[in-house]
């Protein structure tokens, strides 16, 4: 399991504050920052899901039907 270094919502360090609002926000929007290197990811939202790609750390996605 990879340790989360940065917040996928705000891009700040994961240990910088509690990120409760960020976790809440991530229920209604995809992550925009790579949680390993904080690069802004290329994100595509689909009607039933989303995918995100970091140029260094690769892609992640929600589950799609």
């Amino acid at each position, binding site marked *: 399991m990879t340790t989360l270094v940065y917040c996928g919502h705000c*891009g700040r360090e994961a240990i910088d504050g509690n990120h409760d609002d960020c976790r809440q926000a991530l229920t209604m929007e995809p992550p925009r*920052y790579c949680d390993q290197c904080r690069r802004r990811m290329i994100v*595509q*939202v689909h*009607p*039933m899901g989303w995918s995100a790609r970091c140029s260094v750390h690769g892609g992640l996605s929600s589950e799609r039907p």
Partner: protein
Amino acid sequence: MNDILEVAREQVLERGIGLSQEQLVEVLRSPDEMLDDLLALAHEVRVKWCGEEVEVEGIISLKTGGCPEDCHFCSQSGQFTSPVRAVWLNIPELVAAAKETAATGATEFCIVAAVRGPDARLMSQVKAGIEAINAAVEINIACSLGMLTQEQVDELKAMGVHRYNHNLESARSYFGDVVTTHSFEERWATCLMVRESGMELCCGGLVGMGESLEQRAELAAQLAELEPHEVPLNFLNPRPGTPFGDMEIMAGKDALRTIAAFRLAMPRTVLRYAGGRELTLGDLGTREGLLGGINAVIVGNYLTTLGRPATADLDLLADLKMPVKELQKTL
């Protein structure tokens, strides 16, 4: 204050004539104690003039981010420090999204691009996308590609675009506070060209952007003047990095009054829940809006943010015994 309900009952419900801007201000200023009666009347108007059916639509961003315009609510503007990066969707993904949308029972699939207006590359991509979707799945295709020339209107019509979305965004008197890179009149001109082409016009806006109640009524009246087939109603979802990023979320009761007011302004239009409803209204408010004038929904996700699961909306419609409109390729 109950007078406005009596007027609306006679004028809108009985005769099908929308309320004027001045009358809409009265509706928007009505007290909370009147809200249930207001929503019930708006629902009666919707059922009488539009029927029981609810139209379901899905949307997809074909070209995300990097927009040269400065719409202050939008995370896709290249002028703000938004975390949204520019990306184009490929045709197979576009077709997959159309299939996913159709599988929900939706009859409309709207292809959206964050641009001032389409260039030749985008028009070519849209044409290829429409052909690929039509070969794969039965669904009406709508587009939202910004401001158009007459030639582009004609091209899209020839491609078989069923409906074209171009929102007014806000009232004419508030537009300059929302967008500075183009004018209200430029938007209006595109809407007129679309309407006259025979494509269905989808034209709505956003509320909760700091406009006054008078300006909210003004937007509804200006939309009514355009007589759009569909009005998508968005509630501001403040996006990080945008000029409106720190605005308060609109109060749920104000949002419900706005829904009712828009229905009473436009008794026959398709009034669609669009972005921001999850945040502004929540589950209970979503239900109240469907019983207060709304007769269409965007299911699933939006362009850069996520919506409720499609099943949540479809289950709600079943619970409310509201039939989903079926596909009729009549154009």
